[in-house]
């Protein structure tokens, strides 16, 4: 009792000093720096081993380019020290290693096909990485709190749909190997706006579901042990289904369609906790895919290549399973420990540096290397889920899980296609594959996850 009186007697002078930040040691950032140094060492080691294996000598130019990536990620780390001190310490090192291994593999294929200078995909990939990390820094500086994105839910949805259909605009869109998902950007090459669209759509789905999930989850009739939604609540899922079906028909891209629809389905399941949505969505998509495989030639071809890959007739056919089977041969050649950097022949497979980079890596690093890469993806995605799990607001939860899941699903679609688990569809392997738009998109996802994890940790546990 006495202490209470003393306390109230002493309180006459209010605290007037300006609000300073309490100095606490940045344990998380120091851990991140340590992991980043190891990551940079791994990346440098990969480039050096490629040169030793493929050239038999050390050529200093690309080691310098590799160092460029390290300088960039360290600058991102310094930015984090100031604007997101409590962000997750594992996301940045994992993304760095994946990006660096990708550059090393692309460089290795450049050596095999004798590309150099601006023609070299590795140089372009490094420049794109620089641009992508710069975009990530901008995102971290501009978006100081993820709840800002909640205000732009519908704008994000509109932007996502526009970006998705941008390649269909005549004169702007460009068709490469059958799929029309690129736009040409002057002399700098091509850009795949659909990659950026997946971020915009994740923001839109999160915002939309947080606003409307009650009507999607609470009402409806019970049937066969699961609660099914009312007919009028089916609107959103039908719209997204129509969207992904039109991607299959007009852009002729199975993978992108599956990616968006899967993203929506998972976020819908998260928001409502109802299995009936997943059952309905999956049957809708499977139905659409089966019809597409009967009517659209290219989808039918993909299914034939998948089911009957080792048939010589299919193997030799134009647009047949040659690429898929070459990738499998490469993986088989790699065995447990691989042929070693620069000592395999991944260049035999068509597009070994983008869609098939995982087969190229499997050939040169073996099963041990592929599993290491998959473990890195697993950790990256698990961090994203963890951030969503720890989040206090529903929008942040949904967004974090959505962004992490889109990376996971993309990995599954590409790697599953290359390893003949599912029909092959062209998507980029996140962070690894050659392709600027994919790098930019995935680094922005990494930046958003970093921002989300910082706000989650920084929120007071309790306000009295």
């Amino acid at each position, binding site marked *: 009792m006495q*202490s209470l009186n003393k*306390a109230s007697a*002493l309180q006459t002078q209010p605290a007037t000093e300006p609000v300073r930040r*309490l100095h606490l040691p940045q344990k998380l950032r120091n851990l991140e720096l340590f992991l980043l140094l190891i*990551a940079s060492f791994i990346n440098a080691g990969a480039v050096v081993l490629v040169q030793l294996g493929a050239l*038999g000598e050390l050529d200093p130019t690309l080691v310098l380019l590799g160092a460029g990536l390290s300088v960039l990620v360290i600058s991102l780390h310094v930015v984090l020290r100031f604007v997101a001190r409590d962000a997750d310490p594992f996301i940045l090192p994992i993304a760095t290693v994946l990006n660096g291994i990708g550059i090393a593999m692309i460089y290795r294929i450049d050596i095999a096909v004798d590309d150099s200078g601006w023609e070299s995909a590795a140089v372009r990939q490094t420049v794109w990485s620089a641009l992508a990390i710069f975009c990530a820094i901008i995102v971290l500086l501009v978006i100081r709190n993820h709840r800002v994105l909640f205000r732009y839910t519908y704008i994000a949805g509109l932007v996502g749909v526009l970006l998705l259909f941008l390649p269909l605009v005549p004169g702007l869109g460009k068709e490469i190997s059958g799929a029309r998902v690129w736009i040409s950007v002057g002399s700098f090459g091509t850009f795949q706006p659909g990659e950026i669209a997946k971020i915009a759509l994740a923001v839109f789905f999160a915002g939309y579901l947080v606003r409307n999930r009650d009507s999607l989850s609470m009402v409806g009739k019970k049937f066969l042990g699961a609660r099914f939604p009312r007919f009028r609540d089916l609107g959103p899922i039908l719209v997204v289904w129509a969207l992904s079906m039109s991607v299959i028909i007009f852009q002729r891209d199975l993978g992108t369609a599956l990616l968006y629809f899967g993203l929506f389905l998972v976020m819908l399941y998260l928001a409502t906790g109802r299995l009936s949505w997943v059952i309905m969505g999956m049957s809708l998509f499977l139905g659409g895919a089966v019809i597409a495989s009967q009517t659209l030639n290219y989808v039918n071809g993909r299914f034939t290549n998948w089911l009957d890959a080792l048939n010589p007739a299919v193997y030799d056919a134009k647009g047949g399973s040659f690429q898929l089977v070459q990738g499998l041969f490469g993986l088989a050649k790699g065995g447990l420990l691989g042929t070693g950097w620069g000592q395999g022949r991944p260049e035999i497979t068509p597009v070994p540096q983008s869609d098939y980079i995982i087969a190229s890596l499997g050939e040169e*690093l073996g099963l*041990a290397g592929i599993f290491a890469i998959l*473990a890195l993806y697993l950790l990256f995605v698990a961090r994203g889920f963890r951030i969503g799990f720890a989040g206090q607001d529903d929008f942040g939860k949904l967004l974090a899980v959505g962004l992490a899941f889109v990376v996971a699903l993309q990995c599954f679609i590409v790697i599953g296609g290359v390893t003949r688990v599912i029909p092959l569809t062209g998507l980029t392997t996140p962070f690894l594959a050659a392709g600027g738009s994919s790098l930019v998109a995935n680094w922005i996802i990494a930046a958003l996850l970093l921002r989300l994890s910082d706000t989650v940790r920084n929120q007071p546990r309790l306000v009295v």
Partner: protein
Amino acid sequence: MNVSELTLLVLRIGFLLLLWMFIFGIVYALRSDLFGQRVRKMKTDVAPAASAVSAAVPVPSAEAFTAPVARASPTTDAELATSQNTTRLVITSGPKAGTEFPLGTDTITIGRSSDSSLVIRDDYTSTHHARLMLWNDEWMLQDLDSTNGTFLAGSRVTVPTKISLNATVKIGATSFELRR
């Protein structure tokens, strides 16, 4: 081609080992996330022993170095709050009496500023008032030079002080306890 096959083989295996060490390094760093906080086993056997130890050991050592600390930790037979035996912080009086939140191993900062872990917005609280942190696995209460002081079991905290389980910490009009 002056690099021997053997060198390349060693380098190749070395690279894979490095990659896997990186992965296991990350997994080791986030082990508490994956497997949860360490659980104290054999509660019934350890508890009396622990209280006996805490009664015997800290008092002389504390008195030898800093007399106020020894005086401030009021009942030496009460069990000290450590990271193992403490799981939550419970508000016992004030506007939010009865609420609680789980304690991890992170430092808990208390104050009026919104970057604190426990934000107390009343007239008695300073911007950065106090903090709770783990020192050698024991929860310590440190007053951050607050205007109105932090009180542990009725006496004002001037130096970082060990907290006993269920001892009342009073900041302004709010008091809380660390509990199992």
